[in-house]
């Protein structure tokens, strides 16, 4: 299934969750200022898993943070569910992030003072679309679906690396986001756990018709994605 091809050829307009057009991003200041992204365009589709690959420093993660509205582009446009959000203020971009985007980071990024259940509840409590009992039931169900139904009340520090990353996946899915962004989700895991985490992520996302964009260095993971977009020097190649 792994192949490199122009996205516009397969994108059905109704399936596009995320559209980035002509993104530019500079990092650093003065003489150290680097043109990291040089007019990148990208589309993320429902039910598809897209891998962005490339050497370190080519701009993969920078692009991912722009897609996730964690950062602002210096130029270009980002649409989420058909709405241009790149120029919105911080409050609107934060609200869009909470409602439509789920993140999985490389280093798990669980809040270690909280239990697995509380970590999954965290985005739901902020969005407050469900009643407390419904939130708790959904968090239990999500943790069950990633195989951690018996460890819901363990603190982050009491979970292994693979388990923490599974909790992070459950948390990313908590608000049923249209888009899941994963930055090296298996980069910190052994082979067995890498495969398990990737399978879980793609399976759950496809079941819920969610778009997944992941950045990876792992060629095996990239090969198993629906689409692979290689990057070099700030552009897709």
């Amino acid at each position, binding site marked *: 299934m792994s192949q490199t091809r122009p996205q516009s050829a397969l994108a059905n307009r109704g399936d596009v969750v995320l559209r980035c057009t002509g993104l530019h991003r500079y990092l650093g200041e003065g003489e150290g200022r680097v043109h990291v992204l040089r007019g990148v365009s990208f589309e993320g589709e429902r039910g598809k898993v897209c891998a962005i690959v490339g050497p370190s420093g080519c701009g993969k993660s920078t692009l991912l943070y722009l897609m996730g509205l964690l950062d602002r582009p210096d130029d270009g446009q980002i649409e989420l569910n058909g709405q241009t959000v790149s120029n919105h203020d911080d409050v609107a971009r934060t609200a869009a992030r909470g409602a439509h985007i789920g993140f999985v980071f490389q280093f798990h990024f669980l809040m270690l003072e909280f239990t697995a259940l509380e970590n999954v509840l*965290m*985005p739901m409590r902020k969005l407050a679309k469900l009643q407390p009992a419904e939130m708790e039931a959904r968090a239990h169900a999500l943790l069950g679906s990633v195989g951690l139904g018996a460890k819901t009340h363990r603190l982050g520090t009491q979970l292994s690396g693979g388990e923490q990353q599974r909790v992070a996946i459950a948390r990313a899915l908590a608000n049923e986001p249209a888009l899941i962004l994963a930055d090296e989700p298996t980069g910190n895991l052994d082979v067995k756990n890498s495969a398990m985490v990737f399978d879980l992520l793609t399976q759950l996302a496809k079941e819920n018709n969610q778009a997944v964009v992941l950045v990876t260095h792992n060629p095996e993971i990239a090969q198993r994605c629906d689409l692979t977009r290689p990057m070099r020097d700030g552009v897709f190649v």
Partner: protein
Amino acid sequence: MSNNLRIGFRFLTAKKRAMLMSLACTILGVGLFVVTQATTSGFKVVFLRTLLGTNGAIRVEDRIQDTMRSMSAPGGSDFQILQKEGVQYIEGVEEPRRVIAAVREFTNVRGASAVLHGNVQLTSSFRSTDAQAYGVQIEDHLQVSDLAQQIAAGNLDNFRRSPSDVIVGRVIADRLQLAINDWFTVTARGESRRYRVAAVFETGVRDIDRARLYVDLSEARSLLKRPSGASFIQVSLFDPNQAPADALRMTEVLSHSVTPWQKREEVWLGVFDALQISSGITVTVFTLIASLAMFNTLAMIVIEKTKDIAILRSMGYERRDITQIFLWQAGIVLGIGSALGALFGAAVTFAVSQLPLSITGIFTTSTFQVAWDPMHYFEAVATAVVMVMVASIIPARRAARLEPGDIVRGTAQ
């Protein structure tokens, strides 16, 4: 429990050392504030209670008379204009009954007593001393003073039984070696009379205890050759703090010089104010140090929690949520710290109040004096609120300003 409060509480309790450091700063800040206020105010309260119980809240003294000058029209006309030139003070109160009746019309007045005083010489079998005889009507004077509570030996019934019975200050009694029912001679205006010690009083104010004796008012008139009038009217008030305002109105109404205790004792009040400012400076310096320590602690928590801030921001938590989370942490420290600090302050205040300390001269006490005033606790907590909020608002706002993209990229400043 609000979500942000829950997160703030968990962040705080996870960093036990930082939390204990912040709590210790707040507890010490509140506690020391309470203790310094209680100890500084304690002596002032005792001093003022002594003076109010001895000399009253207000003293109505010399009558004020306007002095006038006349201006005649030129050219031998009889036309003249009288113009107010200044005021003249006529010593004493000429009509004490009328003045007392007028004073009692003031709603804040609890009692008024006419006092006639004059210099006398006291002579016992052992030695002589100069003193001031205070002629009073005892029932009136008990309403404007704590004389009943200041009786150290003998009793007031002895004083009431005969005009020859007098009440002498403790130092006079000691100096002349007088005991209850002892007779001694009082010389005034070239005439000597024999009086008996009915009681000995002790205010604790040495200047009073060594120079004052109370005589029945009628007897004092005879002794001092003042058949009418009074030296002053001593007035007690229900609310002594209103004395300046009441004194001002009395001056206008009575045309007498009226002095409130705040004016009368301004030298001593100035001394106590200086002490209070001095202790205030000490507490302020400590508070600033505590604030800096707290600022440091909270800033460290923010630095340690940058990753969590990025996680929360990635999940849709706004900047104001982040600010709230860190302000909640400060609020929790403030709440617990204030409560424990108040208890700590009360315990230390109680311990200090048990310390033996013998003072006589401006008042009498055998232990360290403290004041139990709820305002001290309110002021301490208010100071803690300012201290904690100032110390926490900068780290909290800094946390909110962090860009989640910078944090996950590892370039957050």
